[in-house]
């Protein structure tokens, strides 16, 4: 395969077909117009070449009918491309509720991947076949971009924010993983592989990998070690609000506003506690900036999620929020 002249990338996810369909549709329209116009130009150039040095062709001022035709037809074609692209984009954007979650942290110049059960990988990502997988991603330093060409997906990871994307692989194999956003000296070395495995192989791989604690457990340990548990008590008797059943719910803030407790909200509350104060509580919590890594944060979030019963059922809306909130800027 590798040695032959490849014109089309491998396709290994259910989302890829829609992208390719759009690509081929636009390609078809483009080729039609490119060939048509080129032929017209060639034909005119030859047919109406100058035959005598003195000839003066009759002037043609223009034609409103023609102008309208070649404005409206391309416009309609363009709109059809817009609709086609947007439909696929929306479908490829919203992860299904039952998607399994992986956590990605970019760092100059490597990708760190955490599985919920605690397995960690660097520059390699193992995923099961035919299961929706949602990636929750951030970065420790500059902007990177998580790009898997075979799945036709890509999303920037932005410092201070969580971005998400999802896919459902439908072909076993080993696929490229690239960093697509320029991130410094070893940008082109920030690459790796995505391994799509049969469900059974995946389970075997998971259990075979060296595994300490799950992300939840690691998060719980951090939660206790950093002293969070002394204030955020389960029975709401502490100085801070309880975190049981908080994730995915609306939280009332001082000043009357409310915010949905999602990954971005928890991250902000840990690093910049003062920016959103829960109604009825004082500004007491110190910042944990510098005391907790991006990976640790994801573990704590994972733990707080596990405290919330509703999460397993309806996970989807929460992770859209960070993108939506910041995007308006």
């Amino acid at each position: 395969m590798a040695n032959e002249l490849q014109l089309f990338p491998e396709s290994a996810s259910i989302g890829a077909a829609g992208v390719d369909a759009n690509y081929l549709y636009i390609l078809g329209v483009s080729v039609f117009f490119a060939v048509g116009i080129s032929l017209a130009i060639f034909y005119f150039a030859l047919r109406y070449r100058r035959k005598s040095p003195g000839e003066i062709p009759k002037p043609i001022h223009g034609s409103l009918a023609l102008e309208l035709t070649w404005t409206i037809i391309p416009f309609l074609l363009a709109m059809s491309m817009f609709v086609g692209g947007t439909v696929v984009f929306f479908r490829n954007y919203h992860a299904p509720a039952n998607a399994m979650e992986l956590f990605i942290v970019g760092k100059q110049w490597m990708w760190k991947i955490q599985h919920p059960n605690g397995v960690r990988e660097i520059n390699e990502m193992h995923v099961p076949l035919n299961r929706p997988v949602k990636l929750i991603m951030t970065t420790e330093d500059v902007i990177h971009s998580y790009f898997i060409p075979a799945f036709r997906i890509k999303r920037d990871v932005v410092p201070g924010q969580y971005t998400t994307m999802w896919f459902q692989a439908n072909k076993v194999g080993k696929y490229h993983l690239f960093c697509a956003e320029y991130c410094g000296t070893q940008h082109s070395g920030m690459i790796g592989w995505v391994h799509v495995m049969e469900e059974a192989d995946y389970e075997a791989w998971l259990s075979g990998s060296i595994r300490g604690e799950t992300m939840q457990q690691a998060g719980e340990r951090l939660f206790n070690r950093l002293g969070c548990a002394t204030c955020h008590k389960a029975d709401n008797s502490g100085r801070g609000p309880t975190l049981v059943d908080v994730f995915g719910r609306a939280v009332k803030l001082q000043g009357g506003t409310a915010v949905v407790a999602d990954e971005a909200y928890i991250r902000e509350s840990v690093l910049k506690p003062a920016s959103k104060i829960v109604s009825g509580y004082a500004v007491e919590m110190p910042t944990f900036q510098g005391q907790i890594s991006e990976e640790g944060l994801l573990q704590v979030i994972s733990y707080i999620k596990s405290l919330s019963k509703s999460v397993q059922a309806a996970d989807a809306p929460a992770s859209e929020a960070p993108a939506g909130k910041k995007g308006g800027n």
Partner: protein
Amino acid sequence: MSSQALEQSSAHPANPNFQHQYEDLQQQYSSTTFGMWVFLVQEILFFGSLFCAYAVYRSMYPEAYSAASHHLNVALGTFNTVVLIGSSLTMALAVRCAQLGRNKGVFGYLLATFMLGNVFLGVKVVEYSDKFKHHLVPGPNFAMGGPYNEQAQIYFSMYFAMTGLHALHMIIGAGLLIFFMWKAYNNTYSTDFYGPIENMGLYWHFVDIVWIFLFPMLYLIH
């Protein structure tokens, strides 16, 4: 033929300030004035991008903005606003004198404008040094304290960028004022040539108006 000779208006105006590329002083006047307005459009977008960034962060961190803006000296800001409005008045009077061809008046009012501009800049120096003293300059030494210490750095970065850029415009304006004072001293302006002073006025008023926006945005809204 696409063109034919127009009877040449070879009688170019005798005014020494007339530039050869124009047909007459009227065209020169309307071109330079129009040019100044286009320049101000450019300036609006130049400042506009800062206003835009200010607004974005204000909506993201209203509390931090509020907390940080309490560290500005409203009294000095008000004083400066009055000074600047006063300088706009003297500038307008200078333009009036130029239109009437009174070069002495132009000189005097430009001098007054220049002095008021310097008062403004002097007060700005006091304010800036105050910020340095209280560790309110963003960077490693920033120490506003309180819960919004980090985000307040954005506020003060905006503060220094916006007022700094405004002050830079004032300094350039002051330099131009000296140039035009020298011109007025040499009796350059007359009833048929006063465009440069008008354009100087447009620039000066524009810089004032920027301050009229900056003052409430930075000092007053909490």
